[in-house]
């Protein structure tokens, strides 16, 4: 079994690699560029291309992007996590309380631990008890938000800790917003783990065909547990990014984000049925949603009209990628 005489793989050159790229991914990328160009032309007089405005879009979408990285793994494994938004809210509250009681580092650890704990509870019920993830995380959506509200008497918890707030999203590094760095780190790591590690392969195999993965020796329950913990942990990070940016932890933080996160992931080419997933696509999807919201408001649509328009565009975008398969 030591023979290595293998014909060179076709298309390993840059051009071949480009040709092999999933065209659906290109489509979402083209859509992103298309929308960007349309806004750039029609809204140039309203400051769309102003660097401050563009960086603002990045800031607004960063928490969604970070949670979307976790969601790519969850949906890639053919599961769902509806609790990410309220987990972020709970983590923002626990981090805020811990910071005022014990200081910066314990606060960060508590915020992260909150996300991991919520993910662990989700994972336990899904893999050990056997409750479908849709129901487990739907229940957890309410539990996490309720817990955050109860623990604080529904009062937002102020954070007066410049180290924390600067680290988690309030500060810029030169012209680069800290939130952009967080986004790029999360997406970069997520992409490498999904595409270039055995764990990523196991996640996609579990999502693509759980039985075949099991028969091939994959511990599919451990994989499902791991992706739910990962999603919880990243929701915890996102909650702290919210807390750092707004200098406050609140049970209302992240409310409803799960829908934006799922939309970003699906727009990015991840199959809702598992087995096919893209972290970079999810980033594009998240930025596209932010771009739409921003541009439509600059166009003069009010919030209600903007919601209708961006909802319609999301459906349209997914419809195009599906129908032309």
């Amino acid at each position, binding site marked *: 079994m030591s023979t290595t005489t*293998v014909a060179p793989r076709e298309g390993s050159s840059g051009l071949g690699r480009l040709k*092999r790229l999933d065209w659906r991914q290109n489509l979402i990328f083209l859509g992103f560029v298309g929308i960007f160009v349309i806004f750039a032309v029609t809204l140039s007089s309203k400051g769309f291309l102003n660097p401050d405005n563009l960086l603002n879009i990045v800031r607004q979408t960063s928490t969604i992007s970070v949670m979307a990285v976790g969601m790519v793994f969850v949906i890639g494994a053919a599961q769902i996590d509806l609790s990410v938004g309220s987990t972020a809210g709970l983590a923002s509250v626990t981090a805020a309380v811990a910071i005022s009681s014990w200081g910066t580092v314990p606060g960060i650890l508590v915020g992260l631990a909150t996300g991991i704990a919520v993910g662990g509870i989700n994972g336990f019920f899904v893999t050990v008890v056997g409750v479908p993830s849709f129901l487990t995380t739907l229940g957890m959506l309410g539990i996490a938000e309720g817990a955050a509200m109860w623990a604080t008497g529904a009062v937002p918890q102020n954070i007066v800790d410049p180290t924390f707030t600067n680290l988690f999203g309030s500060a810029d590094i030169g012209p680069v917003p800290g939130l952009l760095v967080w986004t790029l780190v999360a997406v970069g790591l997520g992409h490498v783990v999904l595409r270039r590690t*055995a764990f990523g392969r196991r996640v*996609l195999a579990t999502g693509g065909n759980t039985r*075949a993965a099991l028969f091939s020796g*994959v511990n599919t329950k451990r994989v499902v547990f791991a992706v739910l913990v990962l999603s919880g942990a990243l929701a915890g990070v996102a909650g702290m990014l919210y807390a750092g940016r707004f200098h406050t932890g609140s049970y209302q933080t992240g409310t409803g984000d799960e829908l934006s996160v799922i939309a970003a992931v699906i727009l990015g080419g991840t199959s809702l049925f598992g*087995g096919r997933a893209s972290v970079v696509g999810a980033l594009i999807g998240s930025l596209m949603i932010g771009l739409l919201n921003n541009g439509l408001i600059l166009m003069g649509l009010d919030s209600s009209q903007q919601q209708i328009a961006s909802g319609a565009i999301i459906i349209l975008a997914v419809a195009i990628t599906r129908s032309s398969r």
Partner: protein
Amino acid sequence: MEVRVTEARTHSVEAEVASRSPTAVAMRRISMSFGGVRALEDVDFDVRWGEVHALLGENGAGKSTLMKILEGVYRPDSGEILVEGKPVSLRSADDARAHGIAMVFQEFSLVPTLTVAQNVLLGNERKTRLGLLDDRAAVETTSRIFEEMNVDLDPRAEIGALPAGYWQITEIAKALSQHARILVLDEPTASLTKDETQALFDQLRVLRAAGIAIVYISHRMAEIYDIADRITVMRDGRKIRTDTVAQFPVGEVISEMLGRAAERQLRRVNPQTTSPVHDPAAPPLLQIRGLHSANGINGLDLEIRAGEIVGLAGLMGSGRSELVRAVFGIDKVTAGTISVAGREVKIRNPRDAIEAGLALVPEDRRVEGLVLAHTVEANTRLPTIAAGWHGWLATNVGDQLAQKMVERLDVRTSSVRKPVGLLSGGNQQKVVIGKWLLTEPEVFMLDEPTAGIDIGAKLQIIETLRQFADGGKAVLVISSELQELLEISDRIVVLRDGRADRELTPDEFESEEALHRALQGV
């Protein structure tokens, strides 16, 4: 309240058939190309009323294309189709159905949560005067069809709760309820056990006696000689020969199907031509003692030595699949020991089994063997990276491994980056076998490895197993095709009630009949 059947099946099959010409459907000089590639060339094919006509050929010979034309899915470039001597134009599946032509699907098209009756009348429901569903009329209509078919099956039973054998019967009933008189069955026994196959054949004999014309596609020779009246062999898009079963012996059928390649390849199958590398002193590679499982294994003993291919035979429910599932850690083992190369191993899940040096090619490659949407490369590599820390996965390593496997097993694919679901059944099965060979197992277990695949792929797989065993490893093969088991096994173990009941050595299994007798315990 009186039940009114709005559209009762009033006509009797026999009465309708009596007045007809002997030929049900004739296809004349059919030619068809796909993008410049000739798929069919001047093919003549006909089926008579009250006949089972077997259509044979390797994958790619043109059987499926020809039948898709008959079902109205494809339109031929030239040629004509006559139903009862009258030229017809089949532009859609609806057209074909209107002429009484129905396909009984290979991949079942039933809804598992509905009852038998609801499935039979799906899309053709019985309604009350108020336009509501009339379940009682549906049950009555279905019962009447079953009566004609001479089937004892409760129309109110839920499909999902019935064994696979009844699904095919329900499919046939569904076709008959739509007045089908010409049935096309494509590989109908692929997922059936021997008993279920016999029940299906009894059914087909009833239909044949009632005058129904049946086209029967299968890779299993024994079945064809059991059920068919005439055989047509296709090869490379042409009709090679049509003859009655009596005048077309199996050797000739196989050589016509394979063309010139037949002689050379068939001889290689024979185990007597190679000598197993037995070392009587070494401990058996696989030793099972007093195995009990939660799923029907009751005190089973089995040994396989290095260089041996052991065939596992047994009737439905004898515990063949259950044995390999228990050994591989899928079904729970409740008592007994498993040793690999003299060392006792504890197997709680497939991961433990793989680490102990076992590999299993499962019964259903599409459900248990492959992630169909993933590439050949991803599927090939999965077992080797299913556990543990592997760091950075370099893509070229995976591609090279997959490429090596593709060349070794002669997998026909344009690239290792192609989704495995796009390959033919035989090539998919080679990928399943290849992914396990890469784990370098000591003991290779295969559950129905050649079900529903063409003869070329089958011979390739058998040869691969022989080479693997000759390398000092052990192979355990389950097959319901006794002829195949006889051809590849060094020894056959017959299971009964979850125990090893008998063992046959090569001189004892000279004929399929001997094995049949052993299976029946007489």
